[in-house]
């Protein structure tokens, strides 16, 4: 399958991601920032699609653009952060901004140096990526095939254990809160 208008879509999606990222930190209302973040995440999902990684794009949409952002919106609506900032002139940036600028510059320098010096790291021509079997390739890497353990099976199990601990911790913490409110009554 021929890629459709690739440079145009790349620049559009990359521009959307950058503009969304800038809006996240410059917009005044928390909910507007969250919506800008959703735009950024969706644009990044589109970039994944262009890199022939549809499964990563799908997971990006489900996990980040929906799962996490819904939680963000919940918190914003419940805490009504917007109301606090509506009238007063609270500064948009806190005192950590020189640190963030430094980190951002360091990342930029890393990127530039990798682009300038790391010619050996990159392939010298375009690789034909297997778009259609991408999901299957991911599954083979993670779960292995035909009796063999995959390359990342152990890593995946460790990560899932970590997530399980986090879930159990969350349940324990909410349980405790529930008990204390019960005794108060």
């Amino acid at each position, binding site marked *: 399958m021929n890629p459709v208008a690739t440079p145009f879509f790349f620049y559009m999606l990359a521009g959307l991601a950058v503009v969304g990222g800038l809006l996240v930190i410059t917009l005044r209302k928390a909910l507007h920032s969250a919506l800008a973040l*959703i735009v950024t995440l969706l644009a990044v999902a589109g970039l994944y699609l262009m890199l022939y990684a*549809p499964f990563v794009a*799908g997971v990006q949409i*489900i996990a980040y*653009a929906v799962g996490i952002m*819904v939680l963000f919106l919940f918190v914003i*609506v419940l805490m009504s952060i917007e109301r606090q900032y509506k009238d007063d002139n609270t500064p948009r940036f806190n005192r950590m901004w020189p640190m963030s600028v430094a980190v951002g510059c360091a990342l930029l320098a890393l990127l530039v140096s990798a682009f300038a010096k790391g010619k050996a790291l990159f392939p010298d021509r375009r690789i034909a990526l297997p778009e259609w079997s991408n999901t299957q390739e991911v599954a083979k890497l993670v779960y292995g095939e035909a009796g063999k353990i995959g390359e990342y099976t152990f890593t995946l199990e460790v990560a899932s254990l970590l997530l399980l601990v986090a879930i159990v911790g969350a349940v324990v913490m909410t349980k405790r809160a529930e008990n204390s409110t019960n005794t108060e009554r």
Partner: protein
Amino acid sequence: MLDIVMSYFGSTVTPGEAGNQLWALVYVIAIVVGILIAATAANLIERKVWAHSRARFATALPVQSRLPPITDVAEANSERPVRGIASGIGLMFGLLAAFTAYTVIPFGPSLAVTDMNIGIVFVLGAMLLAVLGIVGIEWTSNSHQWQHDSPIGVLRLGAHIASYEIAMGVSAISAILMTSMQGKGTLSMIGIVQAQQEEHIWFIFKFFPLGLVAFAIFYISALQLSSTISGAPLNGNDIQPEMTAGYRVGGENPRWSLLMLVEYTILIAMSSIVVTLWLGGWMRPFPSLLAAPIWDLIFPFFPAITFLILATIVAVGVARVSGDSFFGTQRARLAVLAVALGVVAFLLLLIAIAGRSAERHIFSSLRENIGYVYWFVLKVAVFMAMFISYRANRQSSPVDRSMQLGWKVLLPISVSVLVVTAVVGVFAS
């Protein structure tokens, strides 16, 4: 130009795969128009069913009230929006999510905008985006009740959707697992239907109770979701007056009518997913059992017969309308409808007869594709009817009950069905 138009004819892949943007655009327009018509029709049928189940005879009358969906939308959009265009951003998300899901839903082996490697993941993700839309709609409405009522309602709604999406996703995975029996599993929507074709069984009947249970869980979740999103009786928001129907209170009329469109669009998408995953998508009933040439001859006549029956029903309606001159316009309208349906039936009959021999290429491929769309739409229509009658006749249940159903009943069953399907699949292959 003509080359691009003609080059796609007779293609066996979707326009997305063939890289044909023009036909992809044609498909997109056709799907959007079809969804708009289907949503209007579903709205009308829902009004009728609700009227009958509540004994509201004025609305239930066959002739007098055929236009409410259209007049309502016209009236709603004749009002001036009060809140400016920026407040519609949540609604934009909802519409985007609802219509994006249709890009990969297959109406036939080549009748989808495109086929994606991650089809079902994409559809579920796109429909999940509607949650953002709903929360955004509530927030942007800047409702005066925001401090106590409707935000809590919409948050509860979001929690509801999230809970049922888990059971839905897990039961969908057990259907995807069934595609891997032939050695190559797939997430693609077209691939899932083709796997059912290759295994000669709809997944609802596969590993007998397992497929049925997974289907039932998905369907119950979809029912719960649909009636939670829309203001059906099951809706906890509606039966608890302090919640005031959640996110729907804030918007003025044009936005409310678009919100209805989003809800019906998602409802049709849900039915399409159920049909694709478990009921063989575009396949006609018993494609391998009734594979004799005589059946190949008989089945293509079904679309024509259906439209003929519809035309007959409307014609009988014309005869039944009172002869009083007061009803003159309505009789004329009904007669025009009957004639239009009859013409469609005649055209379908013509195609079914002309496409019998493979020599007339366009007619035979047209006949084939009409058959695919017909069976798909018929199955979806059955599910829509079930959705609507459920929503009209179900008793209300409070939100804690329905959350208990989701977390304590559906989720454990769906996970155990998934595990058992995997075990049975390993032993069967």
